[in-house]
C-alpha cells in the first residue's frame, strides 16, 4: 500500500509524519537509543488497543477512526509506523540485541494486554 505519511503515537498524541523526510522530522530525530524502545512500546500498545477496541466493541472501524479523529488509513499508517520503529530499534541496538529486546517487549505486551 502506498502511503504518503505514517502515524506515530508519541507524547500522548497522534503525529502524522511524512515518509519522504521521516527521519528528519523533529519528533523522530529526537528519538535516541535510550528512548527508541519506549517509542516502539507506546506505538505497539496504542495499535493493540485500537485493534482490540474494534474487535471487542464490534464497532465499525471507521467509527473508531472518527472517534480518534484520524483518517480511514489510520490502521495501516500506525502499522507501518510500528514497522519503521522496529527497524530503528534494530539499527540502534544491533540486530541480535534489538531482536531480543523486541521479543521481550512483545511477550510482555501479550501478557499484560
Amino acid at each position, binding site marked *: 500500500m502506498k502511503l504518503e505519511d505514517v502515524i506515530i503515537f508519541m507524547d500522548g498524541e497522534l503525529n502524522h509524519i511524512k515518509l*519522504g523526510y521521516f*527521519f528528519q522530522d523533529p519528533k523522530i530525530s529526537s528519538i535516541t537509543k535510550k528512548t527508541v524502545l519506549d517509542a516502539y512500546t507506546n506505538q505497539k500498545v496504542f495499535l493493540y488497543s485500537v485493534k482490540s477496541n474494534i474487535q471487542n466493541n464490534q464497532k465499525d472501524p471507521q467509527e473508531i477512526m472518527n472517534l480518534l479523529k484520524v483518517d480511514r488509513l489510520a490502521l495501516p499508517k500506525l502499522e507501518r509506523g510500528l514497522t*519503521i520503529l522496529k527497524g530503528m530499534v534494530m539499527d540502534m541496538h544491533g540486530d541480535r540485541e534489538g531482536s531480543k529486546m523486541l521479543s521481550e517487549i512483545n511477550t510482555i505486551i501479550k501478557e499484560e494486554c
Partner: protein
Amino acid sequence: MYNKSESLERYFKSIKDLNPLEKNQELELAKEAKAGNARSFNKLIEHNLKIVVTIANKNAGRGIQVDDLIQQGNLGLYEAAKRFNPENGVRFTSYAGTWILKYMNKLIDSCGRIVRIPVNQEIERFEAIKRGDEVANMRPVFIDDQVSEDNDTSKSDIIFSVSPEVEENIQTDHNKKTVTGLLNTLKNRDRRVMEMFYGVNLAGGMKAKDIADEMGITQIRVYQILNTVKKDLKARV
C-alpha cells in the same frame, strides 16, 4: 570554510554529475539492491554521495577535517544501503542521512577532542552553538596549539614527548605481532587495502579514493573490503 585538498577537489569533480535520484528510481534501485543486484547497490550509493558532502559541510568545525568526515560519512551511506528496507516507503535519502550522521558523530566523538565527551553531550553542544547559545570550552583543541602565549611548546610536543621506555610499553611487540599476524591471514588484496587505509608500515593512512586509484578498483569496492575485513577480524579477535 575549509581548505580543499587536491584529492578533495578531485573527489568533488568525480561526483559532480551524480545527481540525486527521483523517488521511483530510488525505490526501484533499492529493491534490486535488496535482491542482490550489486550494480543497483553501487548506483544507489553513488547517486547519494553528494548528500554526504552536504552533511559533512554542515558538521565542519567540530574538530575534524571535512575530507575525513566525508570518508566516514561514505561508510555510513554504505551501511544505510545495506540495511535499507524499501518496503517501508521511507525515502532512502532520509534513512541514509541518519546513518551518515551517526558515522560522522562516531568519528567526531573519538577523534574530535583530546578529552572524550559522550556523543549525546557533543551533539547537544553542537546544537547549542548552532542556536547561538553560549557554550563553555567549545573551541576544538588542536595539537599544534601553543600551550601558552609565552611558551613555544605545542601541545603535541607534550603529548608525544614520552620517554623511549614508555613508548616501548605502549607499542609492545605483542600488539605488533598480533596485528601483523591477523593481517597475514587475509587475502593479499584485502591486506593491502587495510594496510593502506590504516597506514600500517606506511607514513600515514591513505584516502579511500587514492587506494581505489592505486588498486584499480572502485571506491565503493574499497569500502566493501574494509567493512568485510573489519567484521571478520573483529569476530576473530
